[in-house]
C-alpha cells in the first residue's frame, strides 16, 4: 500500500442547533483546530477546497469569502459539492491535487449552517437534491427515499423495527460521550414505544421509518489538512495515510435503480475500489465511520463494506459487533444519528474521527486494541454519490 498522501491535521466545530455566528466564523472553528493540530501557519498551505450543500447557503460562491476569512488568499481556492458527501469528495480532490504534484499541502473545509431555514423547507430542498423534473412533483423528501429502501430491504431480509431501533440506541450510547455531538441524550426502547405518550422517537415520518430512525440536522464545520509524504513526515509526528479511495455514482431517478432490497449500488462499487487500492480486505478494518443518515443506511452500509454478507447486516447489530468493544466498531462518535449531520461538514467529521482513532487520541470514544486501519463511508443523496476512504498509520 502506497503512502503518498497523509492527513496531518484535523478539526471540527461543535455540532449544534442554531450556531451563533456566520458561516465564515463557523468555518474558522474547525480550521483553527486543524491548523493547531498540524502545528503550521497559513503560509504552509498551498490551496484550499470548500465543501457544502449550496441549497442552505445564502452566500453565493462561498470559497472565496471563506478563504479570505481563513487567511488563505492569494492561494488557489474553489468549491466542491456532492450533497451529504461533499467533504469526502473534497478530500478525494485534494488527494489528487497532491498526488499529481501540483500542490504539497491542501486544506479541505466542510461546513453547513442548516438552521437558517425550517425543517420542512430543509426537507424540500434536500428532496430537490433528487430528480426535480420527474420525482419532486410527487412530494418526495429524503426520509421517503430511504424508506423505499427500508421497506424493500426489511421485506426481503427479515430486518425488524427492533433492529433499526437498536442502531439508534447504539448511536445514542456514543452521542452521550461525544461532547461535540448535537444529540447528547440516551435512547431506550421506551422512546420507540407507540403506546408511550412521551415517546420521542415513535412517530412515523416516512413509513417504515420513524422519528428515531432519522439523523439530526445541525450546524457545523470540519477541516482536514492533507500533505504529500515529504511534508507529512517533516510536519507531523503521527501522519495518517490515505491508503485507498473509492467513489461511484448512481441514477438519480428511483425508476432507474436496481433492486431496492440490495441497498446502495454506488456504495458497493466505492468500497470495492477502495479495498483494491489499499490492498486490504473488510476484516482488516479495525474501526469504521458509516453514513447513518437513517438507521437503515447503517445496516445497508455493513453489507456494502463487506462487514456482513448481503442480507445479514442485522446480525452485527443483534450481536453488538459494531459497538466499541465489538469485532468491527462503527460510528463510535455517535454517527450522523446522534453526532448530527451538517451536510457539507459530515465527511470531514467522519475522517477526523477515524484519524483520532488511529492516532489513539479519541478519548472516551477510543476503540481498544490500537486500531491501525480505519474506513470512512460517506454517501451523498440517496446513494446518488458514494465515497469510501481507507486510512492507515
Amino acid at each position, binding site marked *: 500500500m502506497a503512502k503518498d498522501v497523509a492527513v496531518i491535521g484535523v478539526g471540527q466545530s461543535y455540532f449544534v442547533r442554531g450556531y451563533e455566528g456566520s458561516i465564515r466564523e463557523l468555518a474558522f472553528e474547525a480550521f483553527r483546530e486543524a491548523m493547531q493540530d498540524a502545528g503550521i501557519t497559513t503560509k504552509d498551505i498551498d490551496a484550499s477546497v470548500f465543501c457544502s450543500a449550496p441549497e442552505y447557503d445564502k452566500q453565493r460562491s462561498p470559497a472565496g469569502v471563506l478563504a479570505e476569512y481563513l487567511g488563505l488568499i492569494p492561494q488557489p481556492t474553489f468549491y466542491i459539492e456532492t450533497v451529504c458527501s461533499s467533504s469526502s469528495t473534497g478530500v478525494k480532490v485534494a488527494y489528487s491535487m497532491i498526488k499529481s504534484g501540483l500542490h504539497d499541502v491542501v486544506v479541505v473545509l466542510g461546513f453547513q449552517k442548516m438552521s437558517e431555514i425550517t425543517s*420542512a*423547507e430543509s*426537507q*424540500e430542498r434536500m*428532496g*430537490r437534491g433528487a*430528480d*426535480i*423534473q*420527474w*420525482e*419532486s*412533483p*410527487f*412530494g*418526495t*423528501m429524503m*426520509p*421517503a427515499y430511504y*424508506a*423505499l*429502501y*427500508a*421497506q*424493500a430491504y426489511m*421485506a426481503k431480509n427479515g430486518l425488524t423495527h427492533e433492529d433499526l431501533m437498536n442502531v439508534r440506541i447504539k448511536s445514542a450510547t456514543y452521542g452521550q460521550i461525544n461532547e461535540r455531538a448535537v444529540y447528547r441524550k440516551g435512547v431506550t426502547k421506551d422512546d420507540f414505544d407507540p403506546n408511550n405518550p412521551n415517546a420521542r422517537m415513535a*412517530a*412515523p*415520518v*416516512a*413509513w*417504515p*421509518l420513524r422519528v428515531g430512525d432519522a439523523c439530526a440536522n445541525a450546524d457545523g464545520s470540519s477541516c482536514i489538512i492533507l500533505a504529500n509524504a515529504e511534508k507529512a513526515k517533516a510536519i507531523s509526528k503521527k501522519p495518517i495515510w490515505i491508503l485507498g479511495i473509492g467513489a461511484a455514482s448512481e441514477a438519480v*431517478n*428511483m*425508476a*432507474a*435503480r436496481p*433492486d*431496492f*432490497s440490495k441497498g446502495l449500488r454506488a456504495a458497493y462499487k466505492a468500497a470495492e475500489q477502495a479495498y483494491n487500492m489499499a490492498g486490504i480486505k473488510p476484516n482488516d478494518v479495525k474501526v469504521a465511520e458509516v453514513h447513518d443518515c437513517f438507521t437503515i443506511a447503517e445496516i445497508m452500509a455493513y453489507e456494502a463494506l463487506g462487514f456482513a454478507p448481503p442480507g445479514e447486516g442485522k446480525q452485527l447489530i443483534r450481536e453488538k459487533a459494531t459497538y466499541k468493544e465489538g469485532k468491527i466498531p462503527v460510528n463510535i462518535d455517535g454517527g450522523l444519528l446522534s453526532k448530527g449531520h451538517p451536510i457539507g461538514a459530515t465527511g470531514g467529521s467522519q475522517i477526523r474521527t477515524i484519524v483520532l482513532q488511529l492516532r489513539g487520541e479519541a478519548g472516551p470514544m477510543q476503540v481498544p486494541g490500537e486500531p491501525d486501519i480505519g474506513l470512512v463511508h460517506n454517501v451523498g443523496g440517496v446513494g446518488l454519490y458514494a465515497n469510501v476512504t481507507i486510512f492507515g498509520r
Partner: protein
Amino acid sequence: MGFEKFGRKSFTAITKTAKFVDFLAEGKINGTVCKKCGAKYFPPRADCAACFSNEMDWFEMPKKGKLETYTIAYYAPFGFEADCPYTMGVVEFEGGLKLFARLSKDLKPEDIKTGMDVSVRPIKYEDGQLSFEIVKL
C-alpha cells in the same frame, strides 16, 4: 412550456419531453424509445444515452406490474402538506422498466404489500394538474 402542469406541483416548466403531459391528458402514460437503437426510457428522455441519438419516439408504458417498494409519507415538504399522509412507490414491469409515483388515495396502508400486482393510470387533480398514480389490480 407545458410541463408546469405535471404533478402535484411542478418545478420544471420547459423540457423537450413536455409532450408527456399532453399524453397524460389523453389518458396515456408514455415513455420514450430511441429510433436508432431501440433503448427504452421511463421517465422519458429527449436524448439517447446509449447511442447519442436525439430522435425519439413515444411508447405507451405497460399496464401490469408489481409493487417493488413503497413508503407512506407522514410529513411533507413545503407546499405538499395538505396531502399528508400519502403513499409513494416503485412499480417494476416485465422487461425491467420501472416507474415511481404516488399510490391511489383509496388504497389503505393494510392493503399495500411489496410484490403485489398493480397497474398505473393517469389522474387529473382538482386544480387541473396532471399526473399518474399506482392502483391495485
